[in-house]
């Protein structure tokens, strides 16, 4: 008769095979230790992180996703400096899977490392763990010459949602890298601060369309008292994706003056934009804007005509 249940083997017995002269056998041992999900296995897998064979080290770096805590992160930090790129990448991914805030302590110590890859990976882990101590180093890292480090740092700051970091986030919206700018712009969403709003308004003129899109989308979150005119200008953006977000944000902010301009955009050939503009007109429900919609009641696109009919109803309700 086969064993009916999966085993709960003794960790020491499983670990014995880590001393096998054959790398394949050592890989099998690492996998068995990982399957145990028993924290007693961590020191043995940590040992396998320094194995002579790349395959064993790779498996160990992956296997550490099954564990948590400072011992696990310390072992992964070792793997971040591995000679093999595959091992380094695996360790960086495993770091993002940590959930125990205590696992962040060894990561905080890495933020002064001289290796760019190590710092980026450490920020990656710290972001998920939301350790407030990461805020200071992340703010400092925004002046790093490395784009990767600045990108990782700005993400950490966004997740911590700390008002004290606003000046740093604002300056990151003018970073050289559009990726950093985009994250910084979206990260300002938690703030109701007027200066944040001014920063987002400036970002509506960013040279990169995805930054402009992020800004148009984020503006209503910050309050948007001053955003009306800049968002109206964004309705002329060369990218329809930006025009679409601007229209929806104007509607969310109840900027009735935007209705005519949004209405005139419905003639666009782009169905997604027609759909969202008609939805925006319904949300604004400004009497007199029926004229923009009426020709599209039977639009060829079902999503457009549904929104058009809905919008007409909303405008009629408002009028009565």
């Amino acid at each position, binding site marked *: 008769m086969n064993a009916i249940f999966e085993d709960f083997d003794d960790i020491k017995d499983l670990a014995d095979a880590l001393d096998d002269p054959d790398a394949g056998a050592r890989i099998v041992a690492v*996998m068995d230790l990982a399957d145990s999900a028993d924290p007693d296995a961590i020191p043995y897998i940590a040992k396998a992180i320094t194995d002579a064979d790349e*395959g064993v080290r790779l498996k160990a770096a992956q296997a550490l996703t099954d564990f948590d805590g400072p011992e696990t992160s310390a072992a992964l930090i070792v793997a971040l400096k591995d000679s093999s790129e595959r091992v380094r990448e695996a360790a960086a991914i495993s770091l993002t899977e940590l959930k125990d805030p205590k696992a962040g302590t060894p990561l905080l110590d890495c933020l002064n490392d001289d290796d760019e890859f190590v710092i980026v990976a450490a920020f990656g882990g710290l972001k998920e763990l939301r350790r407030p101590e990461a805020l200071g180093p992340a703010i400092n890292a925004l002046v790093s010459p490395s784009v990767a480090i600045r990108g990782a740092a700005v993400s950490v700051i966004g997740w911590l949602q700390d008002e004290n970091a606003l000046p740093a986030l604002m300056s990151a919206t003018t970073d050289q890298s559009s990726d950093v700018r985009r994250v910084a712009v979206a990260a300002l969403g938690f703030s109701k601060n007027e200066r944040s709003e001014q920063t987002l308004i400036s970002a509506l003129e960013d040279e990169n369309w995805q930054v402009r899109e992020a800004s148009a989308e984020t503006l209503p979150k910050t309050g948007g008292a001053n955003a009306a005119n800049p968002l109206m200008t964004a309705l002329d953006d060369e990218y329809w994706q930006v025009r679409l977000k601007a229209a929806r944000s104007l509607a969310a902010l109840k900027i009735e003056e935007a209705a005519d301009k949004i209405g005139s955009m419905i003639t666009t050939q782009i169905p997604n934009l027609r759909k969202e503009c008609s939805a925006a007109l319904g949300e604004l429900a400004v009497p007199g804007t029926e004229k923009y919609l009426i020709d599209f009641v039977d639009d060829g696109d079902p999503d457009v005509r549904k929104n058009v009919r809905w919008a007409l109803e909303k405008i009629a309700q408002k009028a009565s």
Partner: protein
Amino acid sequence: MPLAQTQTSVPVVVDDDLCIADKGCTVCVDVCPLDVLRIKDMAEGPKSKTAFMQYDECWYCMPCEADCPTGAVTVNIPYLLK
């Protein structure tokens, strides 16, 4: 009714040089939801055992490839729907 043997090309391919079934690894066999992989003895060559696809009953779902620790397994799309 008597039975015939019919040939079929199978989608999962194992690189015997990379496979470590001879060291006790059974990951691909374990993780297959349809249980179509097996370990077989090798008559010649340096390895005593290797994994292979025994049954052509594949959902091309890929845990065998994703979980193989040595990258020995490749999942192709079955010919009939490729």
